[in-house]
């Protein structure tokens, strides 16, 4: 459904961020994209959604295809029209607008007024709390409510494909669990494919079917979520477990990091 073929991204024609990234997501699939800070995960998402162009970034090489069509030179709003919606990092919302207006803006791209009421019901079905908060100014919502709102707003566009950038950021563990449960339901009920960028590798790999690991602008590891969960390196670097599978004891930590198998 979505395919990135060896793409390279540069910001302002100088800063070389992605150095040949290839990945694919099939219809109805949830795929996790993991990696440390600065690995290029967010840039990958922005390359897909076209938002790179708003930050003077460009896909300088390779191609991005969505349902067989090349999209890397389309405008962000054109890409949204095709059915790809990015939920940006940090629960970005239209702060001075109400919850209701935020959701309605999510449906803007479809232009079909008649169905907006129905879609609002669908969103309230996933996030009952938003219904109570309908007329509140969204800027005053709590972190968890904001996250619900941004995912709800994305749903209003009826996306075929959702790009989620760190939906767990700044949320309490039980909220992360709740949000991830809902994402799973959305994926199952609406058939929306999801590409999920996460720092919380454990949560991401329990939701996703497959995963990719990025480092320094490249994909260094990929596989089924199950395999990745059991991978020694992932365990050590992302879950903080030692190779025996127990929580690491800091008493015995050596002062060098175990060499990564995938060093390029």
């Amino acid at each position, binding site marked *: 459904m979505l395919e990135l073929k060896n793409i390279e991204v540069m910001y302002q024609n100088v800063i070389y961020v992605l150095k040949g990234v290839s990945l694919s997501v099939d219809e109805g699939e949830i795929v996790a994209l993991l990696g440390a800070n600065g690995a290029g995960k967010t840039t990958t998402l922005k390359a897909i959604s076209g938002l790179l162009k*708003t*930050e003077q970034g460009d896909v300088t090489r390779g191609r991005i295809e969505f349902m067989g069509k090349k999209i890397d030179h389309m405008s962000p*709003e054109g890409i949204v*029209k095709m059915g790809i919606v990015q939920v940006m990092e940090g629960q*970005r919302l*239209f702060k*001075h607008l109400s919850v209701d207006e935020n959701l309605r803006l999510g449906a*803007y*791209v479809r232009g079909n007024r008649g169905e907006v009421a129905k879609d609002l019901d669908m969103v309230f079905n996933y996030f009952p709390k938003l219904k109570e908060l309908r007329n509140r100014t969204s800027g005053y919502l709590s972190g968890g409510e904001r996250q619900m709102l941004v995912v709800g707003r994305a749903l209003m566009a009826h996306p075929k494909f959702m790009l989620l950038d760190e939906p767990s950021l700044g949320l309490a563990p039980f909220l992360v669990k709740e949000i991830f449960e809902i994402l799973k339901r959305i994926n199952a009920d609406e058939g929306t494919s999801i590409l999920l960028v996460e720092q919380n590798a454990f949560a991401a790999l329990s939701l996703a079917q497959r995963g990719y690991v990025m480092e320094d602008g490249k994909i260094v590891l990929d596989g089924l979520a199950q395999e990745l969960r059991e991978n020694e390196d992932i365990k050590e670097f992302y879950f903080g477990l030692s190779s025996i599978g127990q929580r690491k004891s800091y008493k015995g930590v050596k002062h060098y990091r175990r060499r990564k198998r995938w060093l390029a």
Partner: protein
Amino acid sequence: MDTFLQFFISGILNGGIYALIGIGLVLIFKASGIFNFAVGQLLLVGAFATWAFLKWLELPVWLSVLLAMVVAALVGLIIERLVTRPLIGQPVLSAVMALLALSVMLKGVFAFIFGPATVSYPADVLPGTPVSLSGASFSGELTWGFLIAVIVFGIVTLLFYRSRIGLAMRGTAEDHQLAQATGINVKHIFAITWMAAVLVAAIGGIIIGSKVGIGIHFTPLLGVKVIPVVLFGGLESIKGCFVAGLIVGILESIVGGYVDPNLMVITPYAILLLVLLFRPYGLFGQKRIERI
């Protein structure tokens, strides 16, 4: 009492027109964060276009005004395309400088085409018969102008708060990148905003023109007067613009009538300074949302 009523209502009538012109500034500021310093010259666009159609082509009044509206909308689109779009993503100051440059340029163009003398419409654009109310009497043009201003103001407000495109405009006003991520074509929104802004300025220009005539020197001064109005009301607030327009109009008229006509000119600024001391974001300006 009659004199008071006279001053009070004249103030309201004038204030409505300030508010109308102000709403153009508010729309542009909301959408793009740019303060439109060219507003004074934009008043002339509609005023002179109507005059040219009436005088040179000898068209009927309704057609001249209609065509002037078309011209104004086109000018709005051209300004967006040639002046502000290339400056998207650049510092706000560059856009402000570009608009100042535009303003100077327009002045030159108008002086070249229409000359420096004050002209007045060859036909009555608005009915000139004075309207009287319990002993006080008001200029007919001003009364009709006020009614038109209120109606246009109402239409713009409705569009902004009740329509789909208005919602998109408000979204764009808050966060350009997020608006694009939501599928809003920000460039279209800017174009619509500029079109609307020049249109309301044109309507204001025509109203003023039909009352006191059009001149490249004194008509733009009215635009300058609207600057304290919108700052006073709060730059992002349509409601504030209306209230501030009326307050400035009334105070100006009363000060001018009772105290000294020379003080009229400085009244708006004096009020502005006073208000900004206590409410730096204006009467109804947007407070920054901080979550604690």
